């Protein structure tokens, strides 16, 4: 059983989704327990896998019993073992939260919603696990198709956002597919490790086709992760979608795409090739700086809670892309650590937004009026996420920023360091504004009739199915922060095995 754990990570939610599609049609009550069971099984299998990777090094699981490159393999090293645990546990927490909201938002389509939800988790887990470049494309498309549908199941504006996402997402995935084609035509292989070996064996470092494939794959992945000039699809998609959808989409999709970028850069092309052109990385770090500033400043102007958080995601993507392209080990460590911490931070604040929307029915910031009195536990959970996004120790967000800033200083990219600090400042302003509204109430000038209605409102603490994931995420943020040394040790192990040092001058 333990040998099969890598495959079970995605097979359990996959089978659960199929059973939900079949049975949930008639017995709606079965859906929720099945979803929880599927995701819990996935978490168990991913933790087992992580432990065995930590013990015995890289796991290579040959599907169909074929040796790579002839067959497809799941290749699990320190990096994706960590990310897979994050993906499965975030999905589990989002699944716990979904109990009431799905019924409220998509009451007539519960089984379809949950089936798509589990398929999305399957696609994301598969993307993280696979060691085959083309298989990655198929799984990108599964994750994409499910996200289009999960967004389009929302009200009016969501459909338009979903359509834009279809167009942008397809362009991104097609660019990726073309990039794989250019790699295939020059190397003849599809297995990631084998492509790397072929690139070295055939001495293709100077080949224009490989260069073009690198650009295509990078741009394709950037579109998918909403890197700044290519971000147009994201804010509306995450803002208008059903709250349950945004709770799994917002934390995971962009982060998994960042993982794909790191995987492509380090495993397929190799650090040496990627960072051979240092002018590139200089330009890309500047783009990341722009992304951070644009995301943060746009967030300042929003009055819709979820839209504000969506713009913060764009800034966070800027952090990670910039950190990776600093071409420096500490920056890379910081980015990978930030994938982990940002997934939980985003989950935390989006869960909070979901709770507020389902409780008050309002989407703007004024809905938070006096929430500290009405739902103190929810606010405590939110504070963990907000402090983490601002970067207050000892939360996970503080440590990821710490490593990123160290990377920026080590490589002498002061513009990146400054952008990080400005963004933290803006986050502080944003979240203290929320805390102010929630603690002291809306200022009389803005909403005088709300101010005195505290006693009459029937809003009370969120139900347990929503509180547990929120508080659980808050605790996890602290745990990730406190155990940052151990996580960073795993990441450094991975980086030293992928020869990052030799590629960076």
């Amino acid at each position, binding site marked *: 059983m333990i040998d*099969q754990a890598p*495959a079970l990570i995605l*097979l359990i939610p*996959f089978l659960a989704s*199929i*059973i939900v*599609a*079949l049975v949930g*049609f008639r017995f709606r009550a079965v859906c929720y327990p099945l979803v929880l069971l599927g995701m819990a099984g996935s978490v168990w299998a991913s933790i087992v896998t992580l432990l065995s990777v930590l013990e015995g090094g890289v796991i290579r*699981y*040959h*599907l*169909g*019993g*074929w040796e790579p*490159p*002839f*067959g*497809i393999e799941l290749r699990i090293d320190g990096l994706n073992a960590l990310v897979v645990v994050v993906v499965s546990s975030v999905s589990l927490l989002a699944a716990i939260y979904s109990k009431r909201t799905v019924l409220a938002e*998509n009451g*007539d*389509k519960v089984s*379809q*919603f949950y*089936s*798509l939800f589990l*398929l999305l988790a*399957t696609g994301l887990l*598969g993307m993280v696990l696979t060691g*085959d470049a*083309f*298989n990655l494309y*198929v*799984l990108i*498309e*599964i994750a994409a*198709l*499910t996200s*289009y*549908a*999960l967004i*389009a*199941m929302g009200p009016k504006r969501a*459909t338009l956002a979903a359509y834009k996402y279809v167009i942008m997402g397809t362009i991104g995935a097609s660019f990726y597919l*073309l990039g794989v084609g250019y790699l*295939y*035509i*020059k*190397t*003849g*292989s*599809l297995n990631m490790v084998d492509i790397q070996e*072929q690139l070295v064996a*055939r001495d293709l470092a100077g080949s*224009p*086709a490989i260069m*073009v*494939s690198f*650009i*295509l794959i990078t741009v394709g992945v950037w579109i998918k992760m909403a890197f700044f000039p290519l971000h147009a699809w994201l804010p509306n998609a995450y803002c208008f979608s059903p709250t349950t959808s945004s709770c799994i989409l917002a934390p995971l999709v962009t982060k998994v795409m960042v993982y794909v970028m790191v995987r492509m850069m380090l495993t397929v092309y190799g650090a040496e090739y990627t960072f051979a052109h240092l002018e590139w990385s200089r330009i890309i770090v500047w783009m990341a700086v722009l992304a951070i500033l644009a995301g943060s400043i746009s967030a300042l102007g929003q009055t819709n809670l979820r839209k504000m958080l969506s713009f913060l995601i764009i800034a966070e993507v800027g952090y990670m892309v910039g950190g990776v392209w600093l071409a420096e080990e500490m920056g890379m460590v910081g980015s990978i650590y930030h994938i982990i911490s940002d997934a939980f931070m985003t989950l935390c604040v989006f869960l909070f937004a979901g709770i507020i929307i389902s409780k008050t029915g309002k989407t703007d910031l004024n809905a938070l009026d006096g929430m500290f009195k009405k739902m103190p536990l929810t606010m405590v959970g939110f504070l963990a996420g907000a402090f983490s996004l601002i970067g207050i120790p000892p939360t996970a967000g503080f440590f990821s920023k710490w490593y990123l800033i160290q990377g920026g200083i080590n490589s002498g990219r002061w513009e990146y360091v400054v952008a990080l600090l400005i963004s933290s400042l803006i986050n502080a302003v944003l979240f203290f504004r929320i805390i102010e509204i929630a603690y002291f109430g809306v200022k009389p000038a803005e909403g005088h009739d709300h101010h005195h209605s505290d006693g009459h409102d029937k809003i009370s603490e969120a139900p347990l199915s929503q509180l547990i994931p929120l508080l659980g995420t808050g605790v996890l943020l602290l745990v990730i922060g406190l155990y940052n040394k151990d996580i960073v040790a795993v990441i450094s192990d991975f980086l030293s095995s992928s020869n990052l040092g030799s590629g960076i001058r």
Partner: protein
Amino acid sequence: MKILGLIAVILTGGLLLSAVHDFPDWGDTTSPANSYRLSQYYITETIHVTAVPNMVTAVLADFRGYDTMFETVVIFTAGIAIIGVLRRYGPGPKLAAPKETISKEKPDLIITTTCRLLIPIIQIFALYVIAHGHHSPGGGFQGGVIFGASFILLAVAKDLQTAQKWVPEKRVLKLAVIGILIYAGFGLVAMLFGSNFLDYSVLHPLMPATDSIMARSHSMLGVEIGVAFTVTAIMFSIYSNLASGGDLKEGL
């Protein structure tokens, strides 16, 4: 927007063309893709290790069977997604008001007679394409699409209700799920036999008079049948949902 689009398109096209001179010539047998051990192995060894003469089927259903399973899942996802986005249950305002009303006249005699003759032939041909995928172009996807097309033809020639009698929505979901379960089932049973997911070679104890190589060949047929189930069901489901605007009552 138009100018922006033009610039993006020209940039992309220029980027793609800039690498064309670096490609091996068209039809070059010594190009990396054609001479690397991967494609060589598929061509020379497929018949020996799987006993299937159609290399495309063998690569599709066995060497890259994991990909193909998810390909089936993509179809399944699309079906569920379209139901999720479009389907409306019960009465309720019709979302898309049709501009031209559909004529309620009885279908033409020539059309109905032709369909009655054609549909069985199409379905038998579909079964042939599914079953003969090992030896000739074909397989689960192609056969499934042809089978699904026969129901679509019925819906087009008569009306959606007639076709719905044969494949109502619940049956569509059942068929699609059964198809994927057949595919995943082959993989899971292989896991029970102590091997990796989708390793068909260990399944030979289940099949009479086969060794591990023929087990691969037979399992591929089974897998293709599973694919055909899903594709048939979902193709019809996509058509009927799109044609009726999600209420499955009356369509084109």
